[in-house]
């Protein structure tokens, strides 16, 4: 139970394996919690939990493992927030909207031309306005650079759901993007 000297070797291994992904963890936390202070707390809690569970880490890529832990920390934070404000508790587990499944009919959207470049801050804002489950999937793919399989494992959903969420997320992002272009 105590933190023994013998744990130092473990701490060094953990430090070397996990600390390089701090920016990834912090980035996902920023997008999920939309607040720098909460993101810092969540990243810190994530590393604490990860260290505690390090003995059970079965090898494989470290980044998706850390991001899965971060995601659980954020879920706890959502639950805490929900106690003060109205329901956001299961935001990360929210069900697929009806008719948005993998084989749903393609929605009609005539705007199919190439998008114009926008600056980073604007894109960050557009992404942060997406609904949680879609935002999370998009960030894990485009910014954390996880594979579909890794996203599925980290978020606990089938690969098919990852695909349909990503399709929907990009569709919503494109719509918002084009509205931004039009207003610029």
């Amino acid at each position, binding site marked *: 139970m*105590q*933190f023994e000297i013998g744990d130092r070797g473990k701490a060094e291994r953990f430090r070397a394996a996990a600390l390089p992904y701090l920016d990834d963890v912090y980035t996902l936390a920023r997008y999920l919690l939309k607040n720098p202070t909460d993101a810092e707390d969540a990243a*810190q809690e994530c590393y604490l939990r990860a260290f505690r569970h390090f003995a059970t880490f079965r090898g494989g890529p470290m980044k998706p493992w850390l991001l899965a832990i971060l995601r659980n920390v954020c879920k706890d934070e959502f639950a*805490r927030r929900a106690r003060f404000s109205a329901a956001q508790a299961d935001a990360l587990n929210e069900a697929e909207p009806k008719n948005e499944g993998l084989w749903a009919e393609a929605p009609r959207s005539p705007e199919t031309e190439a998008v114009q470049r926008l600056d980073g801050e604007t894109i960050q804002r557009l992404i942060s306005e997406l609904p949680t489950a879609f935002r999370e999937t998009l960030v894990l793919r485009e910014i954390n650079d996880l594979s579909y399989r890794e996203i599925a494992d980290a978020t606990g959903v089938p690969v098919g759901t990852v695909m349909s969420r990503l399709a929907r997320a*990009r569709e919503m992002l494109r719509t918002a993007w084009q509205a931004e272009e039009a207003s610029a």
Partner: protein
Amino acid sequence: MTCGEAETLLHALIDGELDAGHARQIEAHAAQCRRCTAQLLSYRSLRQAVQGADLRYTAPAALRRNIDRSFPSEALTNRRMFLKGLGVGGLVSAAAAASVALVTLNQESEESIVTEAVSAHLRSLQAEHLVDVVSTDRHTVKPWFNGRLDVAPPVIDLTAQGFTLIGGRLDYINGRAVAAIVYRRRVHIINLFVAQSMGSALQSPRLESVQGFNVRRWTREGLNLLAISDINSDELEEFGRKFEAASVSH
């Protein structure tokens, strides 16, 4: 292939996640569907624009330093430093500090754990709050803990071995949520408390007697286990060994 199917799969194509067979199907579909060709071009340009922008956030230096200092190193052998390094910010950090408290126990608080376990055991017998989830089926009890704890406690039915699983509940020891798994031996109740621990080494079990109750404590696979009951120490030892034997086969 329909446009609906293509619409989802074209993202996998853009992401390089599609197998050759499906990729050919999409390309064949797009070749004869102007709308899907336009979609493909549009989403490709979107992806390029997203990839071309810097959308990452950089962790603040102070955060990096705090996290780095949270783990023991050659220069930091003092457990107090470990706690200090965590810093206390918002609610999450407070929770973190609470859970670390159990990790950094010294001998004194080791004793207070047993004392608290005795109190928790007594509470469970008196307040008609023995179990939150009543079930003799471990497949009901185990999932019940999901999301209530940061640990998946081993829930093992020992009915065949003479210890009947009657349910589980959430309890608190040293201010920290732990799993309590409840068994019955004849008319005696056994509370098995399970909490997360740091080490993974199997410490040899320790039997002790406190305020007339027998307590058996041991560690396995990163978990601290504490069984407490008024059954005699031989039977409690038997419970511990049977639990261990059964959990190895799970």
